[in-house]
């Protein structure tokens, strides 16, 4: 079809001319035979038949009549919808909400879980994992030490190519306030491994990854987004330099990655990448992290050779596993740990869609949310279908007339379906706008003051395709029944029986829709109830700490980590912070609560049998006053004091859970706990005396409030092997918001050492951020629960109003025969309430069945929580009753005399 429009117009004119010619010739022949021109013309016309019809059926032969009919149907549908704006708006907005919600969740699901990395042949990428391949617990979040990566790098026969990376945050500010960007440490040819070609300059070569920096010194590759943001897309960016973590070392930029590459870690963009080799130059921590056999901080990626399968690559890896494990045995491990460390199998997991901790965290919530929005979409469809049914019955007359004028059943059905498609298309278009906005909002909720989540949510063909598919499916869902009904309309019936005593005419489809709506809505309200309750339980958990007026200041920098200087240096920092006006109290610790950091060791209570390592025990090194600054109560004994110095006897404080578990009771004072320490050459285990017992408090996870914990004095931290994860100052302000003193604290600390990187957060934000996932799921499910409730109410209202409308005459008659208003209300309500009850029963059963799928997402609440189930059912019953009450009341106001007159 070349330029169909012009072409068709031309052919239409030709056809007209051809048919008119026919008529003219027929007339002329008749005139020649002696008829008057008038008679001849009339007779020719009669003989010819309906010109328009002939033209139409002839046009059908051209082969694209369907297109024209479609255009006409669409035009007709648009006119009809414009004519009936209330219906159109209601239907389009309902669908837009459903489609928008579905598309929004899908866009996040897609970018986080489904979409492959924009790299070469992602299907052959694998990630080194630590659990058995057929073990269900295989997970992707596992990290490795640099020595292990080194061993794998030295065995090129294992993969076509292999690489490693680690995500970090770099501080780019040379001095003054911290400028944090998303950083990446990578192995030499990491970008080549992924097949990411630079848009400018080059990516890393193996030489760049030489320890101590390559030939050109330390180099960096930056992302397209960072290039645009920070350098305004300057073409001469290659050759410019940045400073990293205030090291004073100049790092040259050698290349820019393409715009569609956001780093290997989905959910986390990257700004600046550096090769591992540069680490020793930029960081003065010694021994270097590249030599540390107990720092688990990087992920290892491999690309399979064409002749390799997952299984063969795993087998090859396992063959060298004992050698690799033996060569990289952490020094801190006790001989009893050796065997199990060597035995722990390597395995591989597919990494086509990238690697993400965010993914494992949000996989399940997103799946549940997807199910929720799908249900909402169903409810929305049911609603629109109901609207359409009501409208279709109002249009019976129109359809009847069109049947009488010769429209075929197929034609009417198609017309109705086209109308549904138009509504769905409009809904989808509006839905896409809502989805764009909604997914951005969701992403914003996923990010918090503690970490930023980055996802590529651009509108692309995948999203458009999804929205189109959803819209088509919904159009068929809600449009099919009205279409079939339209096809059943009988011309004679409708024209004759315009309005009479319709009786209690059954509206089976409408009723089933209401039952479905109520049922689905109940499921959604139950889900909302469960998640909201779960979140409230979580938010109300007694964490054992008082977060009010407390700032957590993470201190990073060379001198904060050096084993010899660390403690004395940090005490100076602490004093500087304490001198700031408005600061009530400052204390020191290796780990702040809920910071994500943790120190772990395995212990077994004395005298218990068994050969395993025992149970995980959390460790923290805290300065004097730390418990007080977090409001953790001492149960017995004393706090650490200034006299618990490095050269003094080793002491510890334990929490109640530890004391109960380790000693069997809470009276632990004076008893001993084995602690690892450094005697100058080796790591040795020494006994430390318990001097105090404290209340249980949260350590890392707000969902696990009382892990057994052992606290050591900060000044006795002599564990160079057991590197501290970080160092934190806890600052409590005297009154008011702690944010007020933050600036003063930062500037005082900078006076001591301007190269320190400080990250300041409110403790409260940190705790709130820990429940991000629960809050998000609760918020979204509550929103959709409410939406479903509204839709269900509209549905019940609609079907009741429709029934009242149909039974108008019957009700009038009943009232004329003596039925009271109460009788009428009862008559109307009875049937609706039966429907609602059926819906509630079905929805309750469905909810009961479905709730076990969300069990893993619930905290402190049973999936079959009876309060939630009963409450949700009550809410829906009340809403259903209210929605039905208005039409019922209106029915009772019907004036019998008016009805009798119109009969």
């Amino acid at each position: 079809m070349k330029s169909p429009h012009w072409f068709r117009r031309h052919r239409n004119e030709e056809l007209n001319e051809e048919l008119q010619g026919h008529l003219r010739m027929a007339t002329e022949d008749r005139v020649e035979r002696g008829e008057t021109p008038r008679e001849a013309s009339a007779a020719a016309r009669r003989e010819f038949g309906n010109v328009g019809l002939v033209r139409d059926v002839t046009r059908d032969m051209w082969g694209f009549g369907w297109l024209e009919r479609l255009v006409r149907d669409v035009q007709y549908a648009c006119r009809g919808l414009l004519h009936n704006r209330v219906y159109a708006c209601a239907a389009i907005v309902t669908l837009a909400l459903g489609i928008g919600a579905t598309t929004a969740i899908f866009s996040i699901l897609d970018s986080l879980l489904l979409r492959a990395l924009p790299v070469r042949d992602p299907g052959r990428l694998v990630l080194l994992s630590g659990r058995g391949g057929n073990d269900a617990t295989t997970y992707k979040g596992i990290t490795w030490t640099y020595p292990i990566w080194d061993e794998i790098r030295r065995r090129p026969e294992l993969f076509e190519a292999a690489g490693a990376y680690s995500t970090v945050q770099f501080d780019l500010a040379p001095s003054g306030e911290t400028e944090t960007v998303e950083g990446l440490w990578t192995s030499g040819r990491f970008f080549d491994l992924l097949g990411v070609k630079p848009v400018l300059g080059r990516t890393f070569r193996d030489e760049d990854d030489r320890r101590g920096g390559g030939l050109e010194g330390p180099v960096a590759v930056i992302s397209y987004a960072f290039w645009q943001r920070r350098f305004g897309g300057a073409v001469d960016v290659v050759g410019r330099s940045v400073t990293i973590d205030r090291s004073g070392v100049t790092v040259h930029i050698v290349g820019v990655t393409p715009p569609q590459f956001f780093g290997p870690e989905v959910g986390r963009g990257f700004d600046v990448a550096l090769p591992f080799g540069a680490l020793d130059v930029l960081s003065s921590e010694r021994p270097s992290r590249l030599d540390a056999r107990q720092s688990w901080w990087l992920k290892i990626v491999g690309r399979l050779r064409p002749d390799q399968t997952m299984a063969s690559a795993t087998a090859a890896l396992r063959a060298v596993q004992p050698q690799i494990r033996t060569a990289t045995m952490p020094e801190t491990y006790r001989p009893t740990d050796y065997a199990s460390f060597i035995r722990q199998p390597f395995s591989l997991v597919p990494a086509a869609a990238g690697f993400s901790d965010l993914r494992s965290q949000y996989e399940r919530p997103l799946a549940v949310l997807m199910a929720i929005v799908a249900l909402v979409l169903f409810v929305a469809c049911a609603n629109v279908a109901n609207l359409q049914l009501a409208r279709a019955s109002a249009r019976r007359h129109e359809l009847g007339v069109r049947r009488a004028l010769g429209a075929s059943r197929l034609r009417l059905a198609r017309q109705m379906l086209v109308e549904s498609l138009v509504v769905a298309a409009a809904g989808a278009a509006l839905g896409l706008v809502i989805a764009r906005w909604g997914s951005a909002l969701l992403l914003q909720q996923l990010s918090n003051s503690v970490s930023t989540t980055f996802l590529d949510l651009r509108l692309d063909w995948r999203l458009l395709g999804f929205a189109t598919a959803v819209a088509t499916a919904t159009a068929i869902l809600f449009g099919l029944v009205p279409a079939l009904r339209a096809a059943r309309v009988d011309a004679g019936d409708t024209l004759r029986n315009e309005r009479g005593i319709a009786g209690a005419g059954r509206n089976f489809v409408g009723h089933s829709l209401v039952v479905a709506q109520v049922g689905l809505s109940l499921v959604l309200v139950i889900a909302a109830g469960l998640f909201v309750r779960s979140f409230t339980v979580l938010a109300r958990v007694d964490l054992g700490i008082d977060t009010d007026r407390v700032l957590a200041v993470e201190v990073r920098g060379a001198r904060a980590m050096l084993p010899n200087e660390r403690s004395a240096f940090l005490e100076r920092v602490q004093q500087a912070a304490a001198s700031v006006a408005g600061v009530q109290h400052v204390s020191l610790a290796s780990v702040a609560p809920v910071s994500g950091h943790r120190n772990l060791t395995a212990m077994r209570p004395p005298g218990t049998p068994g050969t395993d390592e025992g149970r995980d025990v959390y460790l923290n090194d805290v300065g004097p006053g730390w418990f007080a600054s977090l409001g953790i109560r001492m149960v017995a004994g004393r706090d650490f004091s200034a006299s618990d110095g490095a050269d003094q006897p080793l002491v510890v404080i334990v929490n109640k859970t530890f004391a109960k578990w380790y000693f069997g009771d809470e009276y632990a004072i004076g008893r001993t706990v084995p602690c690892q320490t450094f005697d100058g050459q080796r790591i040795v285990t020494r006994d430390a005396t318990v001097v105090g017992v404290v209340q249980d408090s949260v350590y890392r996870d707000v969902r696990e409030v009382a892990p057994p914990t052992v606290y050591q004095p900060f000044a006795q931290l002599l564990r160079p092997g057991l590197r501290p994860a970080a160092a934190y100052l806890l600052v409590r302000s005297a009154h008011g918001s702690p944010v007020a003193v933050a600036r003063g604290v930062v500037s005082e600390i900078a006076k001591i050492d301007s190269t320190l990187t400080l990250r300041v957060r409110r403790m409260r934000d940190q705790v709130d951020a820990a429940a991000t996932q629960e809050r998000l799921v609760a918020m979204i499910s509550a929103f959709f629960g409410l939406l479903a409730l509204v839709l269900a109410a509209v549905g019940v209202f609609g079907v009741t109003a429709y029934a009242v409308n149909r039974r108008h005459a019957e009700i009038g008659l009943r009232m004329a025969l003596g039925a009271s208003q109460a009788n009428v209300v009862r008559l109307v309500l009875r049937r609706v309430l039966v429907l609602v009850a059926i819906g509630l029963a079905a929805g309750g059963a469905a909810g009961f069945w479905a709730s076990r799928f969300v069990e893993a997402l619930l905290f402190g609440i049973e999936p079959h929580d009876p309060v939630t189930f009963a409450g949700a059912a009550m809410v829906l019953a009340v809403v259903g009753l209210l929605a039905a009450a208005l039409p019922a009341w209106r029915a009772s106001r019907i004036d019998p005399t008016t009805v009798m007159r119109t009969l």
Partner: protein
Amino acid sequence: MGQKDRYQNRIELLQGTLDLLILQTLQWGPRHGYGITQAIKARSAELLQVDTGSLYPALHRLERARFVAAEWTVSANNQRVRVYSLTAAGRQRLLSERSRWEQLSAAIASVLAPCPLEEEL
């Protein structure tokens, strides 16, 4: 003569025979639509009346299938008319339609012929 009689005198065309009649008519030379109806009417002694609602769709269908070609010419009395002519493919089609029709009419004729076996019984 009333409307009813007019219809009774006409013979409804069998499904599929219209194509055959059109192709056969064009065999004698190019013709416009009206000309085709007149020709068929004349050859069938006014028994077969081609309905325009069937003729033009058929013509356009045959044109689309390239059995006939159409072009605009000027008629004897100086009018622009669309004239249809048979293509090579159309000739082939005519032959096959024709033989099919002959088979069909022969078959119908033999069914309608008196059956000797039946008489014996």
